[in-house]
Structure formats: C-alpha cells, structure tokens
C-alpha cells in the first residue's frame, strides 16, 4: 500500500466554514482542478454525438441554415448593405459566432440543474460545470470553420496578418457567453423559471448583435450605447480579422462592459454557490 503513504504525505487540509473562501484560494483550487472542466467538456461532446444519427452535421446545420435564410430575406429581398462583402460570407461568419454564444450560454445555464446528483452528492469546485459546458461549442465552431474555407476561396477573399488576432477574439467570445452562462447557472438552481427566460433573452440579444446586418447601420450617436453589448465588438472583430470589414468603433466600451459584467456574474455565482446543494 505505498500509494496510501504517498497520499498521506501531501494531503490537502481543508476547512469547511460559513465564511467564503478568499478569491485567491478559489482561483488556486480552480487551477488545481482544471482537468475537471475538460472532463465535463469531453462528457458533453460524447453525449451530444453518441445518440444522434447525423452527429457533427448538426453542429454546422444551424449556422448554415440561418445564414441561408438571412441571405434570402435580408440579403436579397431587403438588400441590407454589408460593407462591400458578399452577404453570405458576411452572415455566415456572424452566425458561426452567434451560434457559439447562444448554445454555450444556454448549456452553461443548464449545467448545474441538469446534474443534481453531482451537485448534491459530491463536492467539486462548482464553476467547472458551467465552464466545462461552454467548451464543446468550440468543436462546433471548428467544424463550421471548415465549411467557411470554400466560401472564402470561392469569393476570392484574401487573408491578411489580421487573422493572427483570432485567438484573442475566441477568448472574448468565450467570456461573452460565460457572463450570462455563469450568472444563470447559479440563479437557475433557485428559480426554475430561468429556463423560460433564456430563449427570450437570446432572441433579444440576437437582434442587438450585428449578425445579419452591419453595425455601421446604427447611427453614429448611438454607437457607444450599441457597444454596451460586448457581442457587437466581438462579432465585428472576428469579421475584421477574417474578411477585413471596418474595425469596430467604441470597442473599449464593449471590453469594459464585458469585464464589469463578468465580475458581477462571478460574484453572484460565488455568493449563491454556498447553498447549491441545499436548494437543488
């Protein structure tokens, strides 16, 4: 039984008390258990594709279908201007980003209530559940990007060094979905009507984000206000790096909002976390 003596040598000492752990302790604990987020993510990916016949096809079907519908209605019938970029290319990139945000934030919001056994019977740093549930969206995003390549070639759209900024946009995309995702995952445990609110919020959010239209359509005097929605800058930024649409104005408003709301979401989560197991 050598493993036991080894384990006893560096055993963690933990005190369970009413006071909340400090943020530093929490971050350290999260870091030590990062593999848990990956595990939740891998589990979700496996589950999502295990019982579906078409598997990965579902991942791209949604943005493709939405982009096509938008092409017909907005691009052809109404004729929305798109900063001199082919409409389908413009809309497809938008829908790729949007699909990530929308799917990830709603699965994060569900991540704790859909695992009552885990929450009420095992301890783990709870934040891993919403974080882990937002990672599989990147698989969908990657598959969707594969489809983007022929579009780029077909429309003869060159690629510049701006493409190197993509990792930054992806991190921001993740954080943007994480804000409502983390917030609602906690609130959902106490108030189950959150599940009715989520489709409603995501619909409004969709219209407030330049997915099927360009943000330049918004009058200049409202631009700063418009950028309070961080998704606007992120979607514009992704397009900027891939198809050279204009750089988003007032981008810093979005970044600031993102950081402030992220802080609020994390505080709410850590405050409500204490009673998860009692309430769920």
């Amino acid at each position, binding site marked *: *039984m050598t*493993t*036991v*003596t080894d*384990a*006893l040598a560096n*055993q*963690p*000492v*933990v*005190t*369970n*008390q*009413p006071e909340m752990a400090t943020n530093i302790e929490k971050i350290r604990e999260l870091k*030590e*258990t990062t*593999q*848990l987020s990956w*595990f939740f993510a891998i*589990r979700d990916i*496996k*589950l999502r594709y*295990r019982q579906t016949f078409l598997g990965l096809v579902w991942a791209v079907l949604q943005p493709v279908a939405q982009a096509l519908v938008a092409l017909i209605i907005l691009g052809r019938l109404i004729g929305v201007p798109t900063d001199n970029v082919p409409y389908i290319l413009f809309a497809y990139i938008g829908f790729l980003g949007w699909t990530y945000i929308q799917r990830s934030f709603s699965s994060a919001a569900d991540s704790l209530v859909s*695992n009552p*056994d*885990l*929450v*009420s*019977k*095992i*301890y*783990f740093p709870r934040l891993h559940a919403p974080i882990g549930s937002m990672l599989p969206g990147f698989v969908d995003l990657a598959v969707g990007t594969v489809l983007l390549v022929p579009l780029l070639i077909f429309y003869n759209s060159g690629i510049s060094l701006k493409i190197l900024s993509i990792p930054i946009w992806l991190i921001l995309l993740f954080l943007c979905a994480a804000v409502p995702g983390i917030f609602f995952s906690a609130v959902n445990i*106490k*108030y*189950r*009507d*959150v599940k009715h609110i989520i489709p409603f919020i995501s619909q409004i959010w969709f219209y407030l984000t330049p997915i099927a239209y360009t943000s330049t359509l918004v009058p200049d005097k409202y631009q700063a206000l418009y950028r309070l929605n961080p998704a606007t800058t992120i979607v514009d930024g992704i397009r900027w790096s891939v198809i050279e649409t204009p750089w988003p104005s007032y981008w810093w408003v979005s970044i600031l909002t993102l950081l402030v709301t992220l802080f609020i979401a994390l505080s709410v989560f850590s405050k409500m976390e*204490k*009673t998860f*197991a*009692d309430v769920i």
Partner: protein
Amino acid sequence: MKKPAIEIVDLSKSYKVSGTSVTSLGDAITRRFRKHEPEANTIWPLDNINLEINQGETIGVLGRNGAGKSTLLKIISRITKPTKGHCTTYGRVGSLLEVGTGFSRELTGRENVYLNGTILGMSKKEISEHFDEIVEFANVARFIDTPIKHYSSGMQMRLAFSVAAHLAADILIVDEVLAVGDTEFQNRCIKKMGEIENSGRTIVLVSHNMTVIERLCSRSILLEKGKVTYDGRTSETIDVYLGKTGSSSTIERPNDQQPFCLSTAKVDGINNDNTVNAGTVFKLTIEGYLNKPSKQFMLSAYLLTDTGQHVFDEFLPEEQCRKAQTSGKYKFDFLVPEILAPGRYRLGYWAQLIDQSWDVWEDDIAVFEVTSSGRAADGRILDLRPNWQVEKIRI
C-alpha cells in the same frame, strides 16, 4: 501521538423552512408584498457539534431519520457549508452518499469511474492504475462500457462503492450503502473497509445495520436532534441508541401539529424485560394524530432486523385507510403471527397523505427481542414451525 483526520468545532447548520418554498422569480417578488405570509421557521439539523476523529479510525454514526446524520456527512465532504463553526479535514475526502453517488446516467461505467476519480483530484494515470481492480471488485466487467442508466441499483452501488474504496481517498464517508446488494457483496465490502482501516485511512460510516457497525467501528457516536448525545465504544452506543428508542418497547410523544404525528408505538403481549417469547402471537400498535383531513391517507408498518433487513412492510388495506380521513387521533394495530425467529427486531412506520404529497417515516419506533430457550438465532428471520410429516414410500 495520534493525528486528527477530521476536526469539528461548534458546528451548526440551519435551514429556513417556510410554508411554501420559493422556486420561481414570481414567488420571490410577490412574497415581498404579501403581509400575512407565515413566518419562515428555522430548523437546526445540526446543533453545536464537537467531534474529533483520528487518522486510521473507523467511526460509526447512529441516529434516527432526521437526527442530522446526512447533513453531518455532507458538511464533512464539503457538499454544503455549515451555518456556524467549522469542520477541518486532513486529506482527500471521498464520499459515497446513497446509491449511485455522483454518477452521470448517460455515461458508461468506465467514463463514470474516471469522472469520479477526477473529482477526487486524481490524475488519469492514477485512475488507470486502479481501474482493473475497481471493475473486478464491483463485478461489472461485462457492463463497463454500458451507460449507467442501464445498470441495476445493485450494480450502481457496487461500482460506486468500489470506486470510492479503491481511489486513494484518505477519508472515506459511507452513508447507508450496504442497504442494497447481496450478502456476498456486503461481506466483501466489510472486508474491504477493514483493509482500508488497516492501511491507515479513516472511515465515517452510517448504517442501519448494527452488526456491520459493530464489526467495523470500535467507536461510534449517537446523534439525536442534531446533537451528539453519546460518544464511546460501539457496543455501548448501540445499547444507548436501541435502549432509548425502544425503552420498554413503547414510545409516547406529544402532538407536534405535523399533518401526521406519531403518538404511541408499542408491542403488546411483551414481557417486562422487553422480550417476546418465540412462538407467541403478539400485537403491534401504532397510535397517531392525523392533524389534516386527507382523502388518501396511507400507513404502513415495517419490521427490520438488527442488520437492517426488511422482515415485512405491511400497508393498511384500502378499506381501512378510508376510516382515517378526518382529523383526529387514530389507533392502528395488527397481530404478528408466531413465526419470528429469535433476535432483535425494530419497528418502523411510513405515513403518507398522498393527496397532499406529504409523508413521514421513522425507523426504530419500538425495539424488542424475540427470545427462545431452544435454538439460537443464527441469522435466520423466520421460524415457520411447519407441520413436517414423514411417510415411508418405498422399502
């Protein structure tokens, strides 16, 4: 010198219980404007607990339902936070609370083993090292790549126990898991827990099986209404527990205004020393207040052996249930035939107001012993006293 594994200091936990629970945003908002809302009651499942458990100790926790056992285990395993005081654990804590602990129904057995290991803070490599042992012990090799939802509850429990026992937790919390599963597996579990104890790890065990507690734990505590009322050698603690719960095999209680409240439980035709002679018919009586009229009142009485095995679980027949619909005090009784083998038996009841989705159950409302001057108990439950006949049918 002994090192502590778990230190519990002035630990209390409270819950707010209101007439109706707030589960929607609408409730939360309208509640603020309602004036005559019944005030939320605070209940204290744990009330100022102090306890020190040393490394390498196996400790049993005894107590009735609602005494705070589960809450205590949840705080030790950090699933929930205490309201006051603190609990410090030295080492990795693995918990096994009820069947199927932390299993994800859609995942296969293999994936769940890795999930539980990851949650315990183990690396993939460490888990892989123990994987074969785990599967072999649980005896689920054939189903290891089948989703857990297709497992029987016995299989789930076997796997859950095996994971918790083999993954290197320094402190193992086990809540009533031995209630399911066959005797052969139970014996292996008990043996395994003995090995864990010998290897210097700590076990906290809750079980209704007194024999198991007695076999594994040298020390036990008794929890009553959230307080530790006895802490000592297991045999003493069991005597205090069963003595208290079954004092002269009768229990008398005031009406607490719950929808149904037990007032008396007794065994009629019992000797002064709390025993029943084997081979006699005796009567079990339960009296209680029905404080709320109910169209679908239901009551059952069950008998457990010392080891927590069900002897019977008898529901009140429907036409009798109909006699208990209006509020008032009722008496329920029936005769137990003369078939119980010698041994200690514990009576429990389960009352339900089905139309109001309310129920209450309690073990050990009366404890008595069936004694015989003849054969010893040796683990059997029934003495059928059959009418054996011998006939010679061939020369």
